[in-house]
């Protein structure tokens, strides 16, 4: 995350974000998106969801509904870095399961169940691993996205090296 984003985080408050979007179509969605970006660990804490519901006069269950419908929302703190493994059919047949397992192992994450969750974060919030259904880059399978940058024809070796590099880069 860039330093401007960090600065923005301090400047904008939740009421301001709400005011900006309130009344527009899809306001709740835009607000949740923006608020998540303001959060250091890129997630929507329960207290934030409650505050949004209260200020917007929207039922809590509805806020929860929207926050769980879109896969880009997180209800748990995310890592400062992210590794996204495509689990679409093309990537799967070209070994994306091995990539997923290798990245989890390299990051010391245990007990992740792909059929139950689509993301998991290291206990120190250093890095999140998530799965997506398809990046739409099937020709370049298997595809992995590291900190927003898509890499095609990924291998276990390249991936673990990239993760080690994130570690060496230290805290962002």
């Amino acid at each position, binding site marked *: 995350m860039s330093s401007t984003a960090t600065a923005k985080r301090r400047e904008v408050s939740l009421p301001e974000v709400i005011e900006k979007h309130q009344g527009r179509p899809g306001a709740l969605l835009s607000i949740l998106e923006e608020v998540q970006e303001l959060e250091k660990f890129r997630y929507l804490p*329960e207290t934030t*969801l409650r505050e949004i519901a209260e200020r917007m006069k929207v*039922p*809590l*269950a*509805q*806020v*929860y*509904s929207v926050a*769980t*419908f*879109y*896969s880009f929302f997180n*209800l748990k703190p995310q890592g400062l870095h992210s590794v996204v493994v495509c689990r679409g059919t093309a990537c799967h047949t070209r070994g994306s399961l091995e990539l997923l397992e290798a990245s989890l192992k390299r990051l010391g994450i245990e007990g992740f169940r792909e*059929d*139950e969750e689509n993301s998991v974060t290291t206990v120190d919030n250093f890095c999140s691993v998530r799965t997506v259904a398809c990046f739409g880059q099937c020709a370049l399978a298997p595809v992995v996205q590291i900190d927003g940058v898509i890499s095609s024809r990924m291998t276990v070796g390249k991936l673990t090296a990239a993760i080690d590099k994130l570690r060496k880069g230290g805290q962002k």
Partner: protein
Amino acid sequence: MSDKMVTIFVDGHATVVDPSRNLLEACAQAGVNVPTLCYLKDVSANASCGVCVVEVEGARSLVRSCVGRVSEGMKIATSSPRVLRARKNAVELLLANHPTDCLVCARNGSCELQSTAEKLGVRKVRFPRTRKPATIDESTDGIVRDNDKCILCGRCVAVCSEVQTVSAIQLAGRGIRTHVATFMDRGLGTSPCVQCGQCSVVCPTGAITERDETEAVWKALAQSGRTTIVQTAPAIRASLGEALGMKPGSLVTGKMVAALRRLGFDRVFDTQFAADLTIMEEGNELIRRLTQGGKLPMITSCSPGWINFIETFYPALLGHLSTCKSPQQMFGAVAKSYYAEKAGLAPESISVASIMPCTAKKHEARRPEMRGAFEYWRAKGATKPGESYYDVDWALTTRELARMVKRAGIDIESLPEEDFDDPLGRSTGAATIFGTTGGVMEAALRTVYEVVTGKALPSLDFEAVRGLEGIKKAEVDLNGTIVRVAVAHTLKNARIILDEIAAGASPYHFIEVMTCPGGCIGGGGQPVLIDLEKRLARNKAMYVEDLRLGMRKSHENASVQALYADFLGEPLGHLSHELLHTEYAPREV
């Protein structure tokens, strides 16, 4: 009705239909009942299940008739091979993720998924399970949710947000993880849910049910040394028959009493006795507020879902509520104090079960403050250390009682008509109509009018507050003072009334609020598969009973008069305050 009718062809038969009707209704008019699963008239039409498909000539894909519209000359095939295959597929896909629990399911026999699968001739499920098992939500006293049995029809969400404006539940997650959820999936107990049970009435499957407490009641019935008392809410006599397969609106008062005796209850009493008592207290409370200056409008307090609602959403207006406990709770408090004393029974040896049209009653009975009789005896030093008991031990729904009757093999239709026991089984027609929207108001007016004016009412029928309209209004002349009243049912309508009060714009003196559509006759514990017609039939039955009982004014109930003379003293007196009135507190969610 639109003035221009259209002609459509249903399986080749020309039919003239109103174009404002959906395809489903149009087909029904042509004599074809297209199967549906998710659709529920007046409640939910999100067309999610695909069971109601028909083939429309010229349309590329099959059309969902619950949302489809008719147009001039439309040619519809309702059971072509393609249609039949698609319907069966839709149900098979649902069953793939559904437990095969029918034999041990609360909805066995009243389940729409089950009957649809049967109707469509589903004999095997060719698809694998894709959904992970759900956890059961047992976080409230009234409602149990099992998402494993949920077919995502959305009816519960619609009823909760649109009819009740509670919005405790929503569909959350996506794809295979889509499920009915409360905020953070923490269960109804931490949500604004008022436990009205309307979701359990509209749910087509066993995914939302009442918390079943029949086992505890069976046990008490079998226990020696216990005196088991049962009280029946007004609306039960108009719905128990229906729950046992009789015609909707069948009035089974006497047979119900007989059935309860055969189940083994030692005393069969009537919540209606306590309804008359409620009118004595509430009527006098209203008169006091009108004449001595008290918070107005005063609002009725007998519907526990409504109490949960105002405590959650409008805590600032709690002062408007009558302080009267509901008839169920007044009954329990009187049974374990006055009646125990009179009958020479140790109060702790009495179990009170109530039969209620309501799931929220289960919660009401478990409110910590609902131990009036216990406190009464404690003040007399007649309780043991560590001991405590509720005024009402269990509140069973109509559905649970029906289950007990079935299980005992009792054939309700062949039973003789029997009468309630004395003295807590005596009641008036005014108490009966508590069971339907407008009834408490009418009962109160019958008494308040006569108490205030000293004159007999020219007519006991307050037509203006009858019927199933959402909000009803009337004016009554009490010796020159015009009293303006309103009656609301469903929480959506209650909200309108409350917003008026909050804005300082309420013209009323007295307001009746019932949580459920139609009042208790449409309660959350009533027989499922309900529609407007059945509600009307039950509503009508209440007024038939009102006339049948002869006595139609609460203040003429001799047993209630005796209760005051021998025990309570006077309405709103000290003992009444202890046993029959309560307090409310804001509820945080």
